[in-house]
């Protein structure tokens, strides 16, 4: 099958690439661009480890084709904070660190990007809103409690 041209804004930079029509966004990011912060934790579209922002919305990059990001702005965990060595974390990343919202870290990139989408829409979510929103992000380690606290703090709603 011939490849197709893809142009998107990836972590703030315009990127042009050739992709197979059936390349999943997550494979384009991990294998095509070396952005391995986006994880794959399932093959049933249920775990949320692969969540990135596309067109300002959180999406499962394992359940979207790369070609569907044509013309969109895509943000992965690598691009959330400005790329400065030793630079500042994004407030949501800082809140996860501060509130111990991670243990092994496998789910964390997806959690953080999903949470960023939530607080952009609802800057001060209550606990029930956070838990409902994170329905699609599975964590095997933390028991969620500290993740909920982190998301509320990362959105600016108290600590």
């Amino acid at each position: 099958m011939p490849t197709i041209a893809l142009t998107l804004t990836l972590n703030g930079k315009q990127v042009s690439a050739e992709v197979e029509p059936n390349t999943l966004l997550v494979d384009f990011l991990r294998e095509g661009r070396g952005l391995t912060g986006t994880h794959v934790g399932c093959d049933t579209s249920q775990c949320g480890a692969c969540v990135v922002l596309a067109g300002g919305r959180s999406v499962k990059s394992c359940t979207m084709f790369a070609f569907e990001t044509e013309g969109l702005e895509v943000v992965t965990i690598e691009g959330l904070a400005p790329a400065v060595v030793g630079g500042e974390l994004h407030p949501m990343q800082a809140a996860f660190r501060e509130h111990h919202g991670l243990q092994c870290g496998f789910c964390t990139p997806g959690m953080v990007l999903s949470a960023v989408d939530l607080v952009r829409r609802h800057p001060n979510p209550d606990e029930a809103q956070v838990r409902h929103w994170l329905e699609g992000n599975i964590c095997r380690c933390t028991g969620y409690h500290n993740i909920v606290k982190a998301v509320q703090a990362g959105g600016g709603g108290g600590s």
Partner: protein
Amino acid sequence: MQPFQIHRPSSVAEALAALRGAGEGKLLAGGQSLIPVMKLDLAEPTDLVSLAGIDALRGIRSEGGRVVIGAAVSHAEVEASPDVAAAIPALARLAGAIGDAQVRNRGTLGGSVAHADPAADYPAALVGLGATVVTDRREIGADSFFTGLFETALVEDEIVTAVSFPVPERAAYAKFPNPASKFAIVGVMVAATGQGVRVAVTGAGPSVFRVAEMESALADGFRPEALDGIAVSSDELFGDGDASAEYRAHLVGVMARRAVAECA
């Protein structure tokens, strides 16, 4: 995954032409049902026709006692729509309880009704509210749209363009979800409309169905207690690891009563 060619039409007519010119063509909407199925090689289209560039399939409008929602409108947009919240709040809540936030960001109304998953939520809304499915060539009443397990009245290359929902006097949807996927183990939409009471059940059997006995009992008195003593037969219902057929039959009664109570 099998290789395929992509098509990016900007009108319904172009989409139709692309489908007709393809060997094994499939429409791609939100991809939240189709891509998982393709990853398992359970669907192997030679051509995917993306609906993303067709503006005519977008938008939500209220007109003359109806809410008309474009086929490519996402579950998240239905959930957040002020028009839907004002006219049919039960529909906004139903959309907000589909899957998870990322499924709602991508998944669409048209994709859900065309896919006709037996555990999907929208079929209960369409049948419970007495909606009309609008396609590129005709209008199909919800009662005759869902014809079986993953089966609808759509013909091979027919494209859903919108769904038109009449505004009910009151309506509510109660779902007993699978805790992992949120698909309905049983979901019941109850609506009091100008044309009478409608009770539609999803998740319990191969296709959404109405419960006539509940509808007439509620027509006589729209109270949860009106449903006391009405038993739904488990004969045609699913039994699986989530719930036995008997338990599903029981849940139909419980969810229906909850929905009626929520309407009050």
